[in-house]
């Protein structure tokens, strides 16, 4: 298998760290998981290559990462705490489509995580890009009933 590398010019197209609006959205979204005890908090970090990561931390006593979102160049990669890639895409809107595909496969555990992560990304992007927000909201309207049935 070939590990995906990102060329320097691609890395330069975006900020190398999380932007405040993105983090504010992660905080807002993770607050729901924290309130119901599924998570205890979140932390940020970077890879050796400087890609920003945000970790959703599980409850006590282990406080292990239950979800990790990385931004590599233009690509978002969402993994669980075992390194399994849940979603990956350049576009939050396309992430939503992958979430729908996962829903169809009925991966219940993953679905909740996907919903959380995708929502965080969508919210973060809405801060910046109105056009994308419209697209995201359209997809949200499509995905919400399916989530409501399963979660």
């Amino acid at each position, binding site marked *: 298998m070939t590990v995906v590398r990102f060329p320097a010019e691609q890395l330069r197209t975006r900020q190398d760290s999380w932007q405040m609006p993105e983090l504010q959205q992660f905080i807002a979204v993770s607050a729901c998981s924290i309130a119901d005890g599924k998570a205890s908090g*979140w932390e940020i970090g970077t890879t*050796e290559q400087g890609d920003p990561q945000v970790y959703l931390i599980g409850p006590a006593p282990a406080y*292990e990462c239950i979800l990790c979102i990385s931004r590599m160049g233009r690509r978002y990669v969402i993994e669980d705490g075992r390194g399994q890639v849940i979603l990956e895409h350049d576009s939050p809107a396309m992430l939503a489509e992958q979430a729908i595909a996962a829903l169809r496969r009925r991966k219940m555990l993953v679905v909740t995580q996907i919903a959380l992560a995708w929502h965080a990304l969508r919210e973060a992007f809405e801060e910046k890009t109105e056009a994308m927000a419209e697209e995201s909201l359209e997809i949200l309207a499509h995905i919400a009933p399916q989530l409501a049935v399963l979660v």
Partner: protein
Amino acid sequence: MPIATAEPEAKQLRKQAGTWLKELRGRAGLSQVDLAQALGLKYYTFISQVENGFGRVPTDSLEGWARALGVDPREFTRELLSYYEPELHRLLFGGKK
């Protein structure tokens, strides 16, 4: 506030494990990308997750990590157990590393 500021023991030990793993990788002359490649991972982000102390090396890939890092799988697992499951390590090995 959601930011996890406390440093409970489990978290501290996992960070120590991450530091140890990073040292091992450095000694093996591997980048995170190299190690991910050796482990058959698509991205190197999980290596970072583990080395930063937020995730664990999964049990089913302990041997793969050990071999990729050029260390004995049994010793590797024993050492990691002292960080990840210190009580189990104490019961099994009497606190010896």
